[in-house]
């Protein structure tokens, strides 16, 4: 489903060229649970942005379900992000002074689907927060906020969830709960890609891709999958 072929991304800072990622080739199939690990500055976030169609590669090719992302117009990229990809961020990025339900239903604003009634509530049920639908982020704990963000990512039932350091702002207990949630979602058929520098988090995934200085250094399937 996700295919990167010799993908590279350059940033120009001042006069210098920084290769965020260079010559990255990988393939992720439907239904996988992948962790992309690496130290800070390794290029893992750039990789996630490219996979999530938020950024374009300068070199190489990125194919999503056989379609070359490089040839897609911004409007088309937006539509695919809306329909097929759900993002989860380290700092949740919920709209302040807005109810959980309204937050979860944000992607519906930009959807071309005709009937979107009830999708918001259903997503909140999947993450176990149906009873907090009218709470605003200020009234929710960190873990609950992230779960609302995950519900938002799930609301249009995308194929892929992309999570960038989803537990970075959470304590270890809550982190465990969130990763547990991801495992459950994966069990229900969603492809999950988590970007993290935390080995503990990576251990929940079935496959780990390590990236250092913009290049892939390892790509291993877990010997024993944590249950």
């Amino acid at each position: 489903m996700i295919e990167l072929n010799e993908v590279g991304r350059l940033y120009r800072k001042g006069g210098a060229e920084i290769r965020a990622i260079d010559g990255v080739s990988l393939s992720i199939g439907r239904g996988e649970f992948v962790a992309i690990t690496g130290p800070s500055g390794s290029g893992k976030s750039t990789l996630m942005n490219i996979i999530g169609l938020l950024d374009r590669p300068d070199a190489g090719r990125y194919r999503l379900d056989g379609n070359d992302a490089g040839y897609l117009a911004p409007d088309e990229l937006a539509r695919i992000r809306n329909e097929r990809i759900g993002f989860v961020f380290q700092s949740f990025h919920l709209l302040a002074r807005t109810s959980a339900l309204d937050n979860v239903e944000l992607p519906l604003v930009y959807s071309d689907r005709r009937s979107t009634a009830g999708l918001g509530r259903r997503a909140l049920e999947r993450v176990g927060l149906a009873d907090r639908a009218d709470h605003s982020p200020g009234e929710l704990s960190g873990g609950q906020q992230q779960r609302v963000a995950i519900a938002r990512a799930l609301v249009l039932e995308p194929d892929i969830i992309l999570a960038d350091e989803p537990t970075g702002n959470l304590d270890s207990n809550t982190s465990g709960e969130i990763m547990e949630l991801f495992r459950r979602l994966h069990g229900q058929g969603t492809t999950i890609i988590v970007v993290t520098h935390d080995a503990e988090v990576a251990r929940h995934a079935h496959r780990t891709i390590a990236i250092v200085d913009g290049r892939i250094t390892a790509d291993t399937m877990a010997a024993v999958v944590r249950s």
Partner: protein
Amino acid sequence: MRTTRVIGSGVRGMGRNRLRTFFMVLATLVGVAALTVTMAIGEGTQRDLLDRLDRMLGGSSILLRAGGGQMRGGAHGGSGPATTLTLDDMRAIEDEVPAVEYVDPIMAANLDVAHDGQSMRIRVEGHGEAAEIVWDRSVTRGAYITQADVASAARIALVGEVVVRDLFGGRDPIGAQIRIGNVPFQVIGVLAPAGADPHGMDKDNEILIPVTTMMRRVLNVDYIVNAKLGLHERADVEAVAGEVRTILRARHGLGPDVPDDFGIFTPVQVQHVVRSANRTFTVFLPLVAGVSILVACFVVANLMLMNVHERRTEIGLRKAVGARPRDIRLQFFVEAAAVTALGGLLAVALAYGILQMIALHGAIPSGMPWQPALVGLAAAIVVGIVSGVAPARRAAALDPVLTLR
């Protein structure tokens, strides 16, 4: 519909930062209110001025003045003493120009007027009996002067309401004796109220006597300084003015190279003068108010840019969940438009409230023109569009990658 949802999402965004929304509305409000108020005042005073002007010099009349030079006063470019216009000139005009129906010879001066021990300096105007028609002003009490009064240079006077108040203490002046200069007069009538003339003189603070009396008994002169000619309704005013000019030049023996020793003023000319004098109200003040609109634009644009910058994470997020660049543009554009529309409506309401208060104090005529309201609302829309476009485009062009880390 998607556009509706996007707009709705944006409108809800306005409620999240009430203080900033408040400031944007306020900036628009002040700018538009200032513009509307000054435009309304300008229009009101201009219209009022033209009304009074029309009374002074309506469609079918001509004003004559002795002496050359422009009406505006100041430098008199013409030559010749201001003593060449006579009653005989007026009779000649009345006889020889068929289109002239009425002639009112005028001789005026500021004189000491005494009554019952009290003396005041009041403007005294000597007129012919046709003044009643030519100036469309009669008496509310008593009787007007007659042709016989003019022929006999009778010592009778008509007084204005302010004179009644000031010189007679509000008592009925009919039949009272007054002295103008040293000449005794009897008051036979009270002039109808007229307010201020286009020059700003209070027409109710005047005394009217027969022009012959003024010339012979009070000032001891044999010339007049002004005259007003009432023309037939369908007369060609400019053509008649030409005829009058020809007659006067002939009577005054002016050779071909000698300039006029009199001035002829037609309504068109006078309106032109008044309009240009009134430019303060109709051009200058709205220009200043226009600056305040400009300032409102800057303030709103600046606040919108701040808005966009502060919400860059939100914008990045919206893009991540599927917002197209045009969705973002629409959202922020609608925010700017809604804010300025609200500000504009409130401004017009406020402006008319202010205008009502000013009118109550009599500083401007009441009767609100509606055009300034439209201009005000249009200005608000302009503010919204101008201030909303750039920030909206900036928002749409934001790179979500940069804002979402």
